[in-house]
């Protein structure tokens, strides 16, 4: 039996991945998270002096705070099991990645344990987020200076 035959048998025996159901579930879970975020935005705009442009910052902070509580109590794990990418792509997924790493390495001490390992998972997100934002801003600055678009 060579490699290809073996692979064929493995493919036959493996249960099929329910791609379509996964996509639907991710859509619904991600949509619910984003709806909650929109409601928090409206809450900050209604009861605090924030406008549409400025309400984003406290909303992100609140969502990460909620994700922190859900991660600590183990509820976010269950949401992620159902939602998959729908729970990982919004900012709550980022919060979850930071906080779960911090909880995991708590026993190694606060400085070298928590401080050193907190951004093991999410550090790449921050790095490439900052880098891509810089590149996009650079492109836009050049385009504005040439006169193709305006701010």
């Amino acid at each position, binding site marked *: 039996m060579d490699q290809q035959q073996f692979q064929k048998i493995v493919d036959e025996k493996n249960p099929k991945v329910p791609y379509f159901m996964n996509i639907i579930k991710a859509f619904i879970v991600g949509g619910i998270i984003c709806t909650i975020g929109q409601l928090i935005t*409206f809450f900050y*705009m*209604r009861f605090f*002096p*924030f*406008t*549409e*442009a*400025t*309400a984003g*910052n406290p909303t992100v902070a609140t969502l990460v705070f909620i994700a922190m509580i859900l991660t600590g109590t183990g509820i976010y794990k269950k949401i992620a099991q159902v939602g998959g990418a729908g729970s990982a792509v919004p900012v709550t997924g980022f919060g979850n990645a930071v906080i779960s790493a911090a909880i995991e390495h708590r026993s190694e001490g606060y400085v070298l344990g928590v401080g050193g390992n907190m951004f093991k998972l999410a550090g790449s997100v921050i790095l490439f987020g900052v880098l891509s934002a810089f590149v996009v801003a650079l492109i836009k600055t050049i385009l504005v200076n040439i006169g193709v678009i305006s701010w």
Partner: protein
Amino acid sequence: MKKSIIFFLLALSLGACSSAQEQVIFPSDDSTSLNPIIQKHDTIHGYKSVINEEAILVAISINRFDRFNKTKIEKKLTKQIEKAFPEKEVLVSGDQKVMWEVESIIEQKPKKEDLKKLIEKIKSLSKEET
């Protein structure tokens, strides 16, 4: 379980139907040429405005997919209104917060000095960037 989910989704989709925006100017006895300027724009489906001696505040509600061009529409409208009212300071905003603040001013029906304070408050709000 399934039925309740379907019911929930139906209620959600029906909740998206909202009433049409009206056009309100405060004080209402102020006869202005604001209406024809704004009605020329088909990207705007309603506005609420507050006017005193020094300033004009216009909160516009922009159609859903035209919101991508929000700043452009605001700028264009600001220029046109400034032309019509050269002696006044004009603030046009498509921001929901400004809309709510203008609505609360219209509901309160404040006197002249209070109105001035409230308008200043909204102006400083819209300048805020952090």
